[in-house]
């Protein structure tokens, strides 16, 4: 929806829980029409029951750069944070079905603003940002990477660490147990050394026998 003004333009994008408004001017030097926005002066994001967010172009770019790839990964069931801790906007998973959006002011001494969104609110935000991204009236170059397929290594994040480690740890444990069981088995009897006694017997001398204990007289066996 365009609210006409002499030069200033406003574009508004609505979803159930949020509304994004962009204010700006057409870049006449680039030959843009009077209804386009080529110079973004301000944007504001209104949430139902939450504080309104405002910012400049770089903040909008940071919001899109964090939220859109995050949503792309969620479609593949990979929930991972996006946005550096120093970036103006970052987003991370906050429990099942919840997401934590952090917005940091460029002014020193201002605490970051944290918003907890559920899946539905995040989907609203994604739809609003999609509308902005694909609106032909907004003639701003927005540097956003194209969504790409995830690699095996990235997909492994969706499997819990315990389940990922279960197979290799189970295999290692089985190997250790098998080795321990094998160590407990008695060794097979060594073959009797036969060659040495024969050689000594061939010399005509009997091998020395160990001293035998004196035999005690055996009692007579009882007759049955």
């Amino acid at each position: 929806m365009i609210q006409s003004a002499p030069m200033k333009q406003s574009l508004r994008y609505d979803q159930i829980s949020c509304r994004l408004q962009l204010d700006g001017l057409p870049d006449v030097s680039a030959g843009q029409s009077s209804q386009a926005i080529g110079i973004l002066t301000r944007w504001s994001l209104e949430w139902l029951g939450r504080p309104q967010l405002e910012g400049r172009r770089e903040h909008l770019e940071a919001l899109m750069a964090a939220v859109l790839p995050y949503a792309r990964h969620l479609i593949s069931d990979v929930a991972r944070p996006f946005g550096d801790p120093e970036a103006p906007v970052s987003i991370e998973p906050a429990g099942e079905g919840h997401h934590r959006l952090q917005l940091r002011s460029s002014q020193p001494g201002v605490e970051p603003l944290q918003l907890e969104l559920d899946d539905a609110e995040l989907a609203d935000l994604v739809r609003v940002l999609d509308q902005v991204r694909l609106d032909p009236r907004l003639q701003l170059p927005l540097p956003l990477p194209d969504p790409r397929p995830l690699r095996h290594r990235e997909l492994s994040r969706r499997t819990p660490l315990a389940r990922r480690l279960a197979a290799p740890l189970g295999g290692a444990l089985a190997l250790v147990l098998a080795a321990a069981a094998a160590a407990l088995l008695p060794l097979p009897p060594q073959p009797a050394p036969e060659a040495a006694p024969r050689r000594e017997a061939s010399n005509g001398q009997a091998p020395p026998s160990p001293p035998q204990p004196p035999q005690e007289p055996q009692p007579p066996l009882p007759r049955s």
Partner: protein
Amino acid sequence: MTQDLGPTPPDERPLPRRGVERLDLMLLCLEALDFNGGEAMLWLSEQLGYGGLFPNRVELWKRRCHNPLRRACRRGELAAVETDALIRILCVMADRLYPMLRSLLSRGEEEAVTEHRWELFRQRLGELLQERMNPRRSGIQTLLHPLQGAEERRRLIRSLAFAAGTGGFERMKASLMDAVG
């Protein structure tokens, strides 16, 4: 109502087996949400200009039967142009049904109401799964299970919500191509 879903990405590789499975399961979820989903898909394919690819519901059904989880599964590989058409139909249908998807995902409503919605969805999806899918496949058994399948059903609905709308096509296609690139 048709919408511009943005340019088609240049990736012309066919979807992997897992991608075809998910695509068909998500179409089935939309049918579970919309009792006239089958008719809506055919109508949308004509509206989006895919009448040549899917001139009737049998042709549409034959493409979807490439899902290995189906009872009557067709062999061979779907061409990229066919899977792209199915993904676009999926995204536009998800956009039309977005209020229902959102109401399932929202935590802001009464828990009893949300639970009732999920139960209705589970029952309807279960009927469709038993009618069309191979019940011996573990993935189908999980989806049919009232408790163990809850997480997977929620994942499917969440994926549909994030794929709905003008920019959903690229995200969904990239996701279905996972582990290929």
